[in-house]
C-alpha cells in the first residue's frame, strides 16, 4: 500500500479539492454554531477563504518547484561562499579546466584521427584490399597491386559490389590558374571510384569510366577546398579548364566540403583518371604487372563478410599473379622468388578510410598521450579533492554547528556537492574553451600545418558528451573524500575542539599526488632525453647549409638530351647566385628517407636464392654530389660530369655497404657489384667510399647505401641541392626565381633546407617532450599548491597551539621542523610509489624512447630532485609563517 502511494504521489495531490472543501465546511459549521444564518455563514467563509482556485494553483506551483528552490538555495549559498574565497575558487577552476581541457582536446583529435568515418553512404561496407605474403612464404612478394591486376579485378570481383583503384601523383603537380602557379596534390583514380565509394559532387559530375580511357579528353574533379582557394568558389568554373602539369584539363565537377579524401590526412586538390598516370609514373606503368603502385578499395556485397570476400577474391588475384609471371622461365622464377602461391588476400574494413601513413604515425603518439592525459586528469582530480578537503576541515566548526542545530546529513552532503558541482561545471566550461585552442595547437605540433585540413575539430555532440561525462566523473571523484569526511562530522567533537581530526584524507590524497607527479616528471624526463639524444646525432654531413628544390621536371615529356641539358643549365644558373657554394641534383635520400631498396648480388658469391638482408638503399646523385652534400669521402672520387651516357656505370657506396657485401672498407674502390640476379643486371663500378651518414633522416639507422650517377639512370625525379654560405632560407626566393625563369614549363614542387626536413622527422619526439614538460610542470605546480594548502591549513588551525609552545620556550626552528615533519611521510611514500609508477609507465612508452632506457636513473633522480626542490618552497612559506607567530597574538586570537 505504502509502495503504491509512493509510486503514485500525484493521487494525493488530486485530493486537494477534498481537503479544501473540508476546511470550508468546517468553517461554515463554526459560523453556524456562532448563530449566523446559513447564507451569511457561506458568504463570510467565502470572503475569509479567498479564491479556491488560486489556492490550488499556489499549492501546485509550490510542489513543482520545491526541489528547484532547494537547488537554487544551495547554489546561491555556494556562490556566496566562493565570493568570500575567490583565490580558492580560481585555483580549483583552473586545475580542473586544465585537466578537462587536455582530455577533451585529446578526445577531439582521437575522434578525428581514429574514429571518424568517411562521409559516404554505408561506410562500413567499404574495404581495403591488399595481397600480402602469407605465413608459408613471408618473402614472396610476387602478388602485386598492379594495373593489369586491377583490370582483371574490375571484370570479376566476387563478394564485392565494386572495386576501385587509386594512387597519388607522387610529389604533387604544378597547377597554373589565372597565371598563378601552385603545387597541388592529385589523386589518380579509376573511373568508377566515385561510384564505388559513393561520393557525389556538389557541382557538375563525377569522373566516370569514359574519362578513364587513354584517348579521353583530360578531365578533373576538384575538391571543395581547392575550388575555394584557387577559383574563389565560382560555380562557372565547371566546364572550364586550367593548366595542370604539362596539359590543360577540364573541370567536370566539384566535391562537397565534407569529403576530405579516402585516407586520413591525405587531402587531394585534384582527382584525375588513372589513365593519366604515365605522366607521373614510368611511361609503361599501365602495362607493368610487376609494379604494385595502386590501392584497391571495394564495397562489400551485402551479407558478405571481409573473410568471405578474401576467400572469393583469392583465385582472381592468383590468376593475375600467374599471368604476371607467365613469361618468366621456371628456374628464373625460383631464383627470383616468384610464385603465384603462398600469398593471401587481406580484406579489411575501410570505414574510416584506407591505410594512412599519417594515421599510422599519429597512432603511437596518441596511444602514449592517452594515459598521460589521464594522469593529468587524475592529478587534477586529486588536487581538487585535496582543496575541498582542506576547506572542509577549515569549516569543521561551521559544519559541526549546523549538525548540532539539526541539519540533516543529506542536507549537508547536498550543500557540499552543490559547491563541488559549481566548481566542476565552471572548470568543465573553461576546459571546453581551452580544448578549442589546445586541440589544433597540439595537432599542428604533431603533424604540421597541413594537418588541420584533414580534420574538423569543431565541437559536436560527441565532444560535449565526452566533456560532460568527464566532468561529472571528476565531480564524483573529487567530491567523494570531502563529502565522506563531512558526513561523518561529529557535532560535539567539532564544536569542542576545532583542531581535532587529523587531515588523514588530505594526506592520502597528497601522497597520491606526489606519486603521480613523480611519474609524470620522470616520463617527461625520458622524452626530453630522447629528443636531446636525437638532436645530438651527427647526421654525418652539414645539413644546416643545404637547400633542396624538388622539381616537377620528371613529369614533363622531355627526351633524354633535353632532360640532361635542363639539369646542366639548372646547375649553372643556381651556382651563379650569390651565396651558393656548390650545386648538384639528386633523387632520394637527403632528409626524405630512402624510398628504393634493391637486392644486391653478393659479389663473387655463389648465385643462389636472394636473401632479404642483401639489399641496399639507392639514391641518385649528380656531378659533385659528395662535395655538395658535404659527406665525408674516405677514398676514391666524387661523381663527375663524365659519368653519363655510355661511360661505365659508377656508384659510391657507404661503409655499411662495403662491410656487408665485401667484408672490408679498405680496397673496395675499383670493385664491381650488381643488382640481383647478377646475370640480368649491368655491373656498377665502385668509384668512391663515403662515411655512413643519416642522410635519410635522423631516426633511420644507417643502412647499406649506394649513390648511383643520376645522369646514368632512367630516374627522372629531380631535386636541386644547393650548398650555401648563409642561412638557406634567405636564398629561397632568388633560387625559385632563377629556376623558374630558366624554363617556365618546369615548376618547383617543394623547397626546404635539409635541416628543416631532418627536424620534421623529430616532430613526434618534440611533441612528446613539449607536452610531457608542460604536463609535468602543471603536476608540480598543483602538487606545490596542495602541499602549501595543507600546511597552511595546519598553521591556521594550530596557531594557538604554536603560540603556547612558543610561550613555553620552544625555539622557532623546532616549530618549523614540527611542521615540515608533517610532509615527510607524504613525500617519502609518494616518491616511492611514484618511482614504481614511473617505471611502469616507462614500459608503456618504451617504444617512443631513444638512447635511454625506461629505467633510466637520471630521469628518476631528476624527478625526485625537482619535486623536492618545489616541495621545499611549498613547505617553507607556511613554515616560516608559523615561525613568525607571536605568542601573545596567537593566544589572543581564539577569543576574538
Amino acid at each position, binding site marked *: 500500500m505504502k509502495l503504491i502511494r509512493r509510486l503514485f504521489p500525484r493521487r494525493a495531490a488530486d485530493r486537494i479539492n477534498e481537503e479544501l472543501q473540508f476546511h470550508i465546511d468546517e468553517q461554515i459549521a463554526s459560523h453556524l454554531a456562532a448563530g449566523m444564518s446559513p447564507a451569511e455563514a457561506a458568504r463570510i467563509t467565502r470572503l475569509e477563504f479567498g479564491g479556491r482556485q488560486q489556492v490550488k494553483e499556489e*499549492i501546485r506551483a509550490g510542489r513543482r518547484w520545491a526541489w528547484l528552490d532547494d537547488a537554487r538555495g544551495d547554489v546561491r549559498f555556494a556562490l556566496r561562499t566562493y565570493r568570500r574565497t575567490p583565490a580558492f575558487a580560481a585555483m580549483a577552476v583552473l586545475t580542473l579546466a586544465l585537466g578537462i581541457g587536455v582530455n577533451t582536446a585529446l578526445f577531439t583529435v582521437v575522434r578525428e584521427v581514429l574514429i571518424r568515418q568517411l562521409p559516404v553512404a554505408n561506410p562500413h561496407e567499404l574495404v581495403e584490399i591488399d595481397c600480402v605474403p602469407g605465413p608459408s612464404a613471408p618473402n614472396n612478394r610476387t602478388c602485386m597491386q598492379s594495373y593489369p591486376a586491377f583490370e582483371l579485378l574490375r571484370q570479376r570481383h566476387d563478394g564485392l559490389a565494386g572495386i576501385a583503384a587509386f594512387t597519388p601523383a607522387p610529389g604533387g603537380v604544378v597547377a597554373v590558374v589565372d597565371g598563378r602557379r601552385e603545387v597541388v596534390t592529385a589523386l589518380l583514380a579509376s573511373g568508377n571510384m566515385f561510384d564505388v565509394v559513393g561520393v557525389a559532387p556538389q557541382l557538375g559530375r563525377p569522373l566516370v569510366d569514359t574519362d578513364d580511357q587513354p584517348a579521353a579528353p583530360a578531365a578533373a574533379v576538384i575538391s571543395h577546398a581547392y575550388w575555394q582557394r584557387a577559383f574563389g568558389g565560382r560555380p562557372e568554373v565547371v566546364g572550364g579548364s586550367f593548366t595542370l602539369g604539362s596539359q590543360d584539363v577540364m573541370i567536370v565537377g566539384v566535391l562537397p566540403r565534407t569529403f576530405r579524401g579516402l585516407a586520413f590526412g591525405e587531402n587531394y586538390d585534384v582527382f584525375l583518371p588513372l589513365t593519366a598516370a604515365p605522366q607521373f609514373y614510368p611511361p609503361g606503368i599501365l602495362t607493368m604487372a610487376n609494379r604494385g603502385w595502386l590501392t584497391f578499395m571495394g564495397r562489400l556485397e551485402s551479407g558478405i563478410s571481409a573473410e568471405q570476400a578474401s576467400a572469393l577474391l583469392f583465385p582472381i588475384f592468383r590468376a593475375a599473379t600467374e599471368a604476371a609471371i607467365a613469361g618468366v622461365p621456371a628456374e628464373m622464377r625460383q631464383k627470383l622468388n616468384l610464385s603465384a602461391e603462398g600469398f593471401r588476400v587481406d580484406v579489411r574494413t575501410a570505414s574510416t578510410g584506407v591505410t594512412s601513413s599519417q594515421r599510422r604515425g599519429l597512432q603511437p603518439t596518441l596511444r602514449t598521450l592517452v594515459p598521460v592525459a589521464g594522469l593529468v586528469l587524475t592529478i587534477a582530480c586529486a588536487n581538487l579533492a585535496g582543496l575541498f578537503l582542506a576547506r572542509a576541515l577549515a569549516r569543521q566548526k561551521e559544519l559541526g554547528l549546523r549538525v548540532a542545530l539539526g541539519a540533516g546529513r543529506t542536507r549537508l552532503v547536498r550543500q557540499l556537492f552543490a559547491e563541488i558541482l559549481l566548481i566542476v561545471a565552471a572548470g568543465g566550461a573553461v576546459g571546453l574553451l581551452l580544448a578549442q585552442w589546445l586541440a589544433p595547437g597540439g595537432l599542428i605540433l604533431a603533424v604540421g600545418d597541413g594537418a588541420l585540413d584533414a580534420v574538423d575539430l569543431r565541437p559536436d555532440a560527441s565532444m560535449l558528451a565526452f566533456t560532460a561525462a568527464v566532468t561529472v566523473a571528476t565531480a564524483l571523484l573529487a567530491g567523494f573524500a570531502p563529502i565522506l569526511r563531512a558526513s561523518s562530522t561529529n557535532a560535539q567533537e567539532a564544536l569542542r575542539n576545532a583542531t581535532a581530526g587529523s587531515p588523514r584524507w588530505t594526506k592520502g590524497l597528497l601522497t597520491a599526488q606526489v606519486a603521480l607527479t613523480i611519474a609524470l616528471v620522470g616520463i617527461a624526463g625520458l622524452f626530453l632525453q630522447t629528443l636531446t639524444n636525437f638532436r645530438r646525432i651527427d647526421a654525418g654531413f652539414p645539413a644546416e647549409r643545404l637547400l633542396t628544390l624538388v622539381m616537377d621536371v620528371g613529369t614533363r615529356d622531355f627526351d633524354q638530351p633535353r632532360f640532361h641539358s635542363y639539369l646542366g643549365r639548372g646547375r649553372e644558373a643556381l651556382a651563379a647566385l650569390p651565396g651558393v657554394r656548390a650545386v648538384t641534383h639528386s633523387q632520394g635520400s637527403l632528409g626524405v628517407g630512402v624510398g628504393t631498396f634493391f637486392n644486391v648480388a653478393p659479389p663473387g658469391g655463389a648465385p643462389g636464392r636472394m636473401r632479404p638482408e642483401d639489399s641496399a638503399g639507392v639514391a641518385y646523385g649528380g656531378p659533385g654530389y659528395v662535395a655538395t652534400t658535404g659527406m665525408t669521402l674516405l677514398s676514391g672520387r666524387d661523381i663527375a660530369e663524365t659519368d653519363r651516357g655510355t661511360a661505365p656505370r659508377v656508384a659510391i657506396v657507404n661503409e655499411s655497404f662495403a662491410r656487408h657485401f665485401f667484408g672490408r672498407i679498405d680496397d673496395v674502390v675499383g670493385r664491381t657489384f650488381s643488382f640481383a640476379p647478377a646475370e640480368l643486371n649491368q655491373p656498377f663500378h665502385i668509384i668512391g667510399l663515403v662515411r655512413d651518414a643519416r642522410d635519410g633522416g635522423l631516426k633511420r639507422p644507417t643502412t647499406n647505401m649506394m649513390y648511383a650517377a643520376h645522369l646514368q639512370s632512367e630516374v627522372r625525379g629531380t631535386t636541386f641541392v644547393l650548398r650555401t654560405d648563409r642561412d638557406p632560407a634567405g636564398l629561397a626566393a632568388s633560387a625559385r626565381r632563377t629556376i623558374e625563369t630558366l624554363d617556365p614549363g618546369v615548376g618547383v614542387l617543394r623547397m626546404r633546407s635539409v635541416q628543416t626536413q631532418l627536424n620534421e622527422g623529430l616532430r613526434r619526439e618534440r611533441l612528446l617532450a613539449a607536452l610531457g614538460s608542460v604536463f609535468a610542470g602543471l603536476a608540480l605546480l598543483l602538487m606545490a599548491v596542495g602541499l602549501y594548502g595543507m600546511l597552511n591549513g595546519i598553521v591556521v588551525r594550530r596557531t594557538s597551539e604554536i603560540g603556547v609552545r612558543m610561550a613555553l620556550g620552544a625555539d622557532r626552528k623546532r616549530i618549523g621542523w614540527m611542521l615540515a615533519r608533517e610532509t615527510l611521510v607524504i613525500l617519502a611514500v609518494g616518491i616511492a610509489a611514484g618511482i614504481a609508477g614511473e617505471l611502469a609507465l616507462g614500459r608503456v612508452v618504451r617504444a617512443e624512447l631513444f638512447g635511454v632506457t625506461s629505467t633510466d636513473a637520471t630521469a628518476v633522480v631528476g624527478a625526485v630532485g625537482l619535486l623536492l626542490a618545489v616541495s621545499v618552497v611549498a613547505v617553507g612559506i607556511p613554515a616560516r609563517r608559523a615561525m613568525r607567530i607571536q605568542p601573545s597574538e596567537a593566544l589572543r586570537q581564539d577569543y576574538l
Partner: protein
Amino acid sequence: MREMAARKSDLLQGTLDLLILQVVASAPLHGYAIAQRLQQLSREALQVQQGSLYPALHRLEERGWLKAEWKNSGTGREAKFYGLTKAGRKQLDVERFNWERLAEAIGLVLRTADEP
C-alpha cells in the same frame, strides 16, 4: 499598546513554517484545526490566510518535514492530517534557534537604541 496588539499582524516571511511545525509538534492536525490553533494560541493576534496556509502545508510535506494521512476527523468525515517527521522535528529546532537568535538580535538593537 493595546491597539497595536489588537491589530492582526502580517506574518514575517518564513515564520509561518516555524509556526506550523510548532503547532503540529504535539499531535497530527488537519488544516482547519491548524488555522484554528494558530489563531487561538496567538490570542487572535495572528490570522493565517488560507491562501498561504495550504501552499505552505504542501511545501513542508514535499520537503519531508511533514507527513500527511487521511483519517477520520471525528465528525465522520475524512480529513487530511499533518504530522511532524523526524526531519521536521530537526528543522523545527533549527528554525526555532534561528528565530530566537533573530529575536534576541532585534531586542539587542532596540535596547541599545533606547540608551542615551
